[in-house]
């Protein structure tokens, strides 16, 4: 597809069309803004005159940084608009305040107290705009003894309890691929904003949202808190042997495969296949009949046998056998296997976007859900710095052309 040149969002076919979001977020919240923009909101990013620092984050097209080449920027800012404002000047700060008051949602990730210090705290804006939904994402929340602590994605992932359990016993605690603490904070903030917008639709009331990245991670671990709170034991690192050998990934002939023996039949099918290969050892004995045996005292013995057997087979053989018997078995895909995935293309989740200025065409992932009554195309590529200065500052705030030029220093957009 090529992206249609749309400058207005008057169409109400998407759930968030008609809502304006002032996106002041750094990396903790940039995905939250993207999720809103993809669902139709008019998300306006405010950048300093030189452009947002996230434009310098890799990977880059052809490995070289430069204007328009950061794929980090391109990915996380689809469907957004951009204005550049020097908010250190009184005129710039005043324009930012007017933009905030012309918005339905304000999203920010400054340290606690920062927005108050520049006159854009919730209380002062809500006095003039009571319907405003104002969301702050911080590492540890706005209150409590750690409120002023700093955290990167890595540190929040550690403090939320996900890092200690990820990895192998012999490795350090390990982060997930990608900045998942940032994205979890974004995902949670997005839920809170949608709740607040739904409430506003019913009552007209706005509100303040305080999102803690540490809590966002802690509420996403699945087993860390329930294990400790209900057994008194802390969960430990066990690599990809999730839940013992019961739900597990194994090295195989050409990589790794996930072989989950979640039912008696799955376990029976697995050991019968091992037996046909002459590799089952004593596993066909009645004492191994219960599939929960994989969690018990024989687990090391079973693991040894399964491991030796798995090396005989490819990921595809294991997947084919498991899926044809309705077991949740599958390959550990390598990075180069995601792009050609037939299911992702088959559902229209991946989209090729042709460049309009001679650059390469690029494949974008879609959104994490599908609303069948609300098609979700990419309407607009990530903006250039200040690309929408004129249409935002004149069109929304009513500045004259002279005022816009004075405000941004030069004519743009």
């Amino acid at each position, binding site marked *: 597809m090529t992206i249609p040149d749309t400058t207005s969002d008057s169409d109400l076919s998407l759930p968030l069309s008609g809502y304006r979001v002032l996106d002041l977020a750094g990396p903790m919240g940039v995905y939250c803004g993207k999720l809103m923009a993809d669902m139709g909101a008019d998300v306006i990013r405010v950048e300093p005159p030189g452009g947002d620092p996230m434009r310098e984050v890799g990977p880059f097209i052809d490995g070289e940084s430069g204007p328009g080449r950061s794929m980090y920027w391109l990915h996380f800012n689809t469907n957004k608009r951009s204005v550049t404002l020097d908010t250190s000047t009184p005129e710039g700060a005043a324009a930012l305040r007017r933009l905030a008051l012309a918005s339905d949602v304000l999203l920010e990730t400054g340290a606690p107290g920062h927005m108050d210090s520049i006159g854009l705290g919730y209380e002062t804006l809500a006095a003039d705009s009571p319907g405003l939904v104002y969301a702050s994402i911080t590492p540890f929340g706005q209150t409590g003894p750690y409120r002023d602590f700093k955290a990167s994605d890595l540190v929040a992932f550690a403090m939320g309890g996900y890092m200690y359990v990820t990895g192998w016993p012999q490795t350090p605690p390990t982060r997930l691929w990608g900045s998942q603490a940032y994205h979890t904070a974004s995902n949670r903030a997005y839920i809170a904003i949608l709740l607040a917008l739904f409430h506003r639709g019913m009552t007209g009331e706005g509100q303040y949202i305080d999102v803690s990245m540490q809590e966002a991670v802690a509420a996403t671990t699945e087993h860390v808190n329930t294990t400790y709170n209900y057994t008194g034991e802390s969960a430990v690192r066990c690599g990809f042997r999730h839940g013992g050998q019961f739900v597990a990934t194994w090295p195989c002939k050409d990589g790794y495969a996930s072989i989950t023996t979640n039912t008696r039949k799955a376990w029976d099918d697995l050991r019968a296949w091992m037996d046909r290969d002459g590799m089952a050892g004593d596993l066909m004995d009645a004492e191994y009949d219960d599939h929960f045996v994989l969690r018990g005292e024989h687990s090391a013995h079973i693991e040894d046998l399964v491991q030796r057997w798995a090396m005989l087979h490819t990921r595809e053989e294991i997947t084919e056998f498991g899926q044809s018997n309705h077991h949740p078995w599958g390959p550990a895909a390598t990075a180069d296997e995601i792009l050609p995935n037939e299911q992702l293309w088959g559902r229209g989740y991946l989209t090729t976007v042709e460049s309009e200025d001679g650059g*390469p065409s690029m494949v974008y992932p*879609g959104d994490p859900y599908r609303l069948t009554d609300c098609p979700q195309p990419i309407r607009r590529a990530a903006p250039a710095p200040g690309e929408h200065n004129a249409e935002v500052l004149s069109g929304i705030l009513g500045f004259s052309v002279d005022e816009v030029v004075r405000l941004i220093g030069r004519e743009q957009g």
Partner: protein
Amino acid sequence: MNGNEPHQKHLALRGIRVLDFTWIHAGPSATRILSDQGAEVIKVESNNALSVVGGPASATARGLGQRHNWNAGKLSISLNMKTPQGIDIARRLVAVSDVVSENFSGRVMPSWGLDYDSIRPINPSIIMLSMSGFGRTGPWKDRVSYGQTLQAWSGFTELTGFPDTDPSGPASAYSDAVGGMAGAQAVLLALMHRARTGRGQWLDVSQFESLTSLLETLVLDMSVNGADAVSTRSGNRLPHGGGGPHGAYRCLGEDRWVAISVFADEEWQAFVDVAGVPEWAADQRFATAESRCRNADALDAFVESWTMQHAAEDVMGMLQAAGVAAGVAQTGADLSRDPQLKARGFFRRVPDHQGEQRTIESAPYKLSRTPGSVTSGAPAFAADMTYVLRELLGMSDDEVEDCAIAGAFD
């Protein structure tokens, strides 16, 4: 339960009813998000699935914890969907609900006549959330998966871990948590869409897609840079570089670790001061963020030689006091005593149906006007038959008894 209690005006989803067929993890964690904000979530349970993880008779203590954590504040009824009466009651409940949710394999809801096309005539503005591994369309729609299967299939397993060991993947079902968040988001979006247009819709959530959405730039990078794209495990270092130290470092004690991330030069200077200005810090290899990143192996060894002399909590405290991002790699026990989580009330004690106090997690956001409310743990199995059958559906004693005799509640 009724909609007139005064505290309910502080709940964003008061008056919304969810007929919830979901089970295990992803689905119930989605509807817990809704029930926290006042949606009346009616869990439809079955005698056949009592002991699954999160089921009413979970086989393990951890499963019991997950039962409460993902089902706090919900109602429970038992319906035997193998009987016509059970299906009839479900259809009557669809008529009085706003949302129907399910995470079965694709053939289950159609076999009960409860797929979206079948229930829309009963309730034209119904919102139906279907959560599945791969989505309900496309060539893989019938494939089966667990969270860990999807993590493997989406690349998360191969990409998470250190380059010189087996990959580890996420420690738990990140896929289910991510699918749960996507499911809740989709329902909220659909409720907003319905409020504006009057239209319901079918939400086809593929957890495979929800996870793939979190691979950041991987797809773009592969599509443009092909073989040169960054596509391998990088341990705790950022795959696209940036600063250093950036990792987990061993501290005093058994399996104690602190995560430290330093990017800007001022942070590096502050770090060096806290570490006591050691000789190695003056090494030219560590002079800039770029060179620290390039020489990360050497740097990490020096950093760990310092952290190993201190307790993880002390390293965190010293570095945070100097404005450097550092935090303990917290265990389950650490989280339970974390003063920040305590001050924020993250863990909450709520009574279960027998009055016993159960610990659950709170929503990780605070809304000033609609703070939400959880006042009880997960329901006992079939605890709310009377409310649902008599009050909601207006069934008579005789009708309920006839259904019971027919086995509709077994």
